[in-house]
């Protein structure tokens, strides 16, 4: 048994030896295997694009020096405890200076205690729940605004567009983010005097939504609001068509922001609305490595083809923001970079970035969009509107 331990220790030293002084190492625990693995691909693309851009420009300016960026990936198998373990391994064994949080609110929150313990500035690119940030931690920063910033503008637009939308049906995946956003939706709808005629959760791994949809059909709602991951919402949209379930407004979160959802639903994606923290149609002119939103999108298309979605952009933004904070601090000293992040107030391709007292971004106005002609079309905010919300989903 001792010999085995020695073996493990040896491997650990071997891994740490790769660490060199003139690079900035950023740790990124990702769910590369397991149920969340599609999300890991997106995150990784975003981080990679940033690292590539930063290194192509000669590296990150740290005082008088230029330092290259290296991202150290660890697979945490879509398992939260593993994510925590991965974070600790990255900090103590792989000697990373900074950290990107694992995917989603739950894992980000769990891992934040580790980065707090070691005083490692950490940026969460996909955590929106306010509960992630209200622990009094000083080293955690997030690029997503709270969930209600999605459902509030959405409800306003629907209200504005059609006063006849009274009856709302909500079907949510019983999972951290999908359930939280569904609960916000319920609040937003009730606040505006709409009645929620159906609110049910479905279990993770559900293969059939026919019963729920049949019931929703019987409730004859004006607005169907469904949450889940890409596979859930592909199946659900298909089964809605199978059962001839139609409504003036159908909103799905978050899948329609992803190109694979549009590809997998085909014509059925038409007129489905959604909201997200970012959209390739936004136009900001940033001071970060990517510059404007347009040049970020171009750079993305050049590397990956296709348009970036909000999760991919957020990962790249996390890198860009970290870079600016390091350059502002003029050092890779963790405490100083942390202070630079806390004082951050700049516009980037992602939008205006300013972190509140809890570390969660407070300056972003998430766009609302609708799939029109097979493409996401922004209907809010007014500054970047590409079209009007259309009614009727068949």
């Amino acid at each position, binding site marked *: 048994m001792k010999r085995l*331990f020695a073996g*493990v220790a040896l*491997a650990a030293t071997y891994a740490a030896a790769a660490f060199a002084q003139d690079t900035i190492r950023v740790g990124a625990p990702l769910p590369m*295997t397991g149920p969340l693995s599609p999300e890991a691909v997106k995150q990784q693309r975003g981080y990679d694009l940033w690292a590539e851009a930063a290194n192509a420009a000669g590296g990150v300016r740290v005082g008088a020096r230029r330092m290259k960026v290296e991202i150290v990936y660890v*697979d945490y198998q879509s398992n*939260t405890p593993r994510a925590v373990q991965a974070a600790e391994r990255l900090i103590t*064994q792989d000697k990373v200076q900074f950290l990107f949080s694992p995917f989603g609110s*739950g894992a980000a*929150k769990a891992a934040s205690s580790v980065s707090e313990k070691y005083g490692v500035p950490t940026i969460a690119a996909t955590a929106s729940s306010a*509960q992630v940030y209200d622990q009094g931690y000083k080293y955690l920063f997030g690029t997503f605004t709270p969930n209600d910033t999605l459902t509030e503008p959405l409800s306003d637009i629907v209200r504005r567009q059609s006063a006849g939308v009274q009856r709302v049906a909500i079907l949510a995946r019983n999972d951290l983010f999908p359930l939280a956003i569904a609960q916000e939706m319920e609040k937003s709808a009730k606040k505006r005097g709409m009645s929620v005629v159906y609110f049910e959760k479905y279990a993770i791994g559900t293969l059939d939504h026919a019963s729920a949809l049949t019931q929703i059909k019987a409730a004859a709602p004006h607005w169907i609001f469904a949450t889940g991951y890409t596979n859930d919402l592909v199946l659900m949209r298909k089964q809605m068509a199978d059962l001839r379930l139609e409504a003036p407004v159908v909103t799905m979160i978050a899948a329609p922001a992803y190109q694979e959802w549009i590809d997998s639903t085909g014509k059925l994606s038409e007129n489905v609305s959604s909201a997200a923290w970012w959209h390739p149609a936004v136009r900001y002119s940033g001071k970060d490595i990517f510059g404007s939103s347009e040049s970020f999108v171009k750079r993305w298309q050049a590397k990956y083809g296709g348009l970036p979605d909000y999760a991919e952009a957020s990962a790249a933004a996390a890198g860009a923001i970290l870079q600016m904070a390091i350059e502002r601090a003029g050092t890779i000293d963790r405490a100083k970079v942390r202070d630079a992040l806390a004082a951050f107030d700049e516009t980037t391709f992602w939008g205006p970035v300013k972190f509140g007292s809890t570390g969660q971004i407070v300056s972003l106005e998430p766009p609302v969009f609708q799939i029109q002609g097979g493409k996401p079309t922004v209907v809010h905010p007014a500054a970047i509107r590409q079209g009007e919300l259309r009614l009727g989903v068949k």
Partner: protein
Amino acid sequence: MKRDALAAVALFALIAALPLSGDSYWMRLGTTMLMYGVLAISWNFIGGMAGYPSFASAAFFGLGAYTGAVAQKLGVPMALAWGLAGIFALAFAAALGLALLRLRGHYFAIASLVVAEVLRELVNAATDLTGGGMGLNLPIPRLASVQAQAVFFFYAMLALAALAFATTLVVVRSRLGFGLRCIQQNESAADMLGVNTTRYKVAAFMLSGVFVGVAGAIYASWLHYIEPPDVFDVLYSVKAIVMVLLGGAGSVFGPLVGAALFLSLEELVWRNYLQVHTGVLGLLIVLLVMFLPRGLMSLRFGVWGRA
């Protein structure tokens, strides 16, 4: 008996010295290894001694984690919450055992496997109490430093593993252990010889549940955050079995050795293969089963050994 006990004391003393290294990552690995040890030792009661292929470890673990977490949320002190988790797991194992231990072989395996799924969904649905899919946060214990926390949970898990192991030593040499061996060899013959098979099997099942339940509660306090898919993970059941198969050898030390070996393998593979580590782990399992059947088979599998 004495020799085993002495060896065990020496082994646990050695493990107890780990915090001296001062490395928190090693502490985390050590705590995980001890948790795996508890899983393996516990499975050995029902799987190794009684010969029933239980996949219920994940159910006990999740039940313990949520009992401990919910109790703490309701204001119960941590240590008491852990004890409560053990009692819940014990009672649940007793009730479950009475219902399921009449089944044999694959049927028992499947039924015990599915229990974790049912519990997971129930916990998921009881949003008010458990937070459902949103997970549950635990109060962070008020200890001097995060380092002190790491040391504290390490020793808590160590104490639990030592207790479970001591229980194994006692049971193996007791009437209960003897009876379980008889049941594993030939259950109906054991019955004819006066072994109260139901009681013995349920006792073994309870032993396989109680420590795992407490481990789940300690784990929840350690992580401060739990969610249903993580603590009712079927892999806890599978790993417990693989670890005992690995260590095997029918010896009382088998599960412990298996746990250390398995964690080391898992960690090595995880470190060195980013994209394909599950595949490599799978390959290792296949190779072990194919080419080390002697090592693996040295545990005799009783009723479920015979097809």
